[in-house]
């Protein structure tokens, strides 16, 4: 069980509070969608969980703080990419195998084959879509219990993303959890089992998709509702713009 309590993160250099008292619990097997506008704190949240950033509050995994002793239970796929561009896929496999004892060789080979990624080509020669795919393949093959993903499909075409969701649902084992940060709400609606909503560093919504279904709401409705989205915001702004132009001589 991953427990995050009263997580706070302040960037003193920017004088901003990226996270302000976020508490969240993720049980084994859950697929949590982490949503929010740009700058809401999604990436910061994931980086804090991975101990990549200093924070206030507590983050524990099965009651233990996240340290080098249990960090292998987390994997991370990010749109910034965490692989080595000069290395081949094969060399990455060797490196991961050496450092992560629970490396899933069979899964790695199967995913490489499915996405038809070249094993002996340096990653810098991959297309953006292929790079994203490989980043996610590494995260899924590491043998982690908690797979953290930060906009992993940014730059992939819609068919590609669709394939990935299907593959993910097909290969995940019951004890594997995913925390997926993305803007593609409608696409992941049927993939996530829970939605957590961040706004200006605060957790403003946390709901299971089952509850939403029972309420007859979609994920997008939930987000709009929680964000108090005004549907007529655009028309009002356009009206104001045209009024200004008409007033001009």
């Amino acid at each position, binding site marked *: 069980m991953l427990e995050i309590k009263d997580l706070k993160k302040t960037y003193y250099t920017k004088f901003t509070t990226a996270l302000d008292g976020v508490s969240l619990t993720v049980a084994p097997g859950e697929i949590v969608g982490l949503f929010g506008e740009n700058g809401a704190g999604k990436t910061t949240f994931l980086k804090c969980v991975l101990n990549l950033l200093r924070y206030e509050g507590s983050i524990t995994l099965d009651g233990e703080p996240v340290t080098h002793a249990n*960090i292998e239970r987390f994997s*991370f796929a990010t749109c*910034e990419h965490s*692989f080595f561009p*000069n290395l081949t896929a094969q060399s990455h496999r060797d490196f991961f195998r050496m450092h992560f004892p629970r490396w899933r060789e069979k899964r790695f080979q199967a995913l490489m084959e499915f996405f038809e990624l070249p094993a002996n080509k340096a990653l810098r020669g991959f297309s953006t879509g292929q790079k994203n795919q490989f980043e996610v393949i590494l995260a899924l093959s590491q043998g982690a219990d908690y797979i953290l993903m930060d906009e992993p499909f940014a730059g992939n075409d819609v068919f590609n993303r669709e394939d990935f969701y299907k593959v993910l649902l097909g290969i995940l084992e019951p004890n594997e959890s995913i925390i997926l940060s993305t803007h593609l709400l409608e696409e992941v609606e049927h993939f996530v089992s829970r939605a957590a909503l961040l706004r200006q560093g605060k957790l403003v919504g946390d709901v299971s998709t089952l509850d939403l279904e029972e309420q007859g709401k979609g994920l997008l409705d939930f987000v709009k509702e929680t964000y108090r989205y005004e549907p007529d915001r655009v028309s009002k702004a356009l009206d104001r713009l045209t009024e200004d132009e008409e007033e001009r001589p």
Partner: protein
Amino acid sequence: MRRIDWDALAPLGLGGRLTANRICIGLGASSAFAWIVFWTNLEACEGALDWFSGDRILRFQSPTGIMEPFYQILDHSLLCFGFVALCMLPLAAWHYCYHYQDSRSIYLMRRLPNRRELWRRCLGLPLLGVAACGVLSAAHVLVFYAIYHYAASPQCLQPGQWRMLWESLFH
């Protein structure tokens, strides 16, 4: 004998062997510089040496009867080793910054169960380079001193050569 895995001492994909070769070139050049400076200084000593005369090596015979102290002949011959050692600082910084180039491989390196892996790959070669500079400098001092000692007649040598060398380093 176990061979050193140079690639394991540099960031992944950077080529540790290539960097090690470049450090070796720097060390070789430093050694050449040291020999040139030392030899030039030794030859410039008053009453320069007739090193070889027939089959016999002649020793230094100063007209004044006193050979210049070792530290003066050593002069700045080891300067390049210091420069190579200093170059290890930007090398270490570059190794670290490499993890931010074209991707954020730093995220992977920082979440490895082996916490020493990142530092081994960033500092391994630079530290080896500094150590090599230190060892080679010391070796050169010893060899040069042996040559100096052999080249000069014992009665021409001033006492307290090492003390003078030590003092020249810190004053």
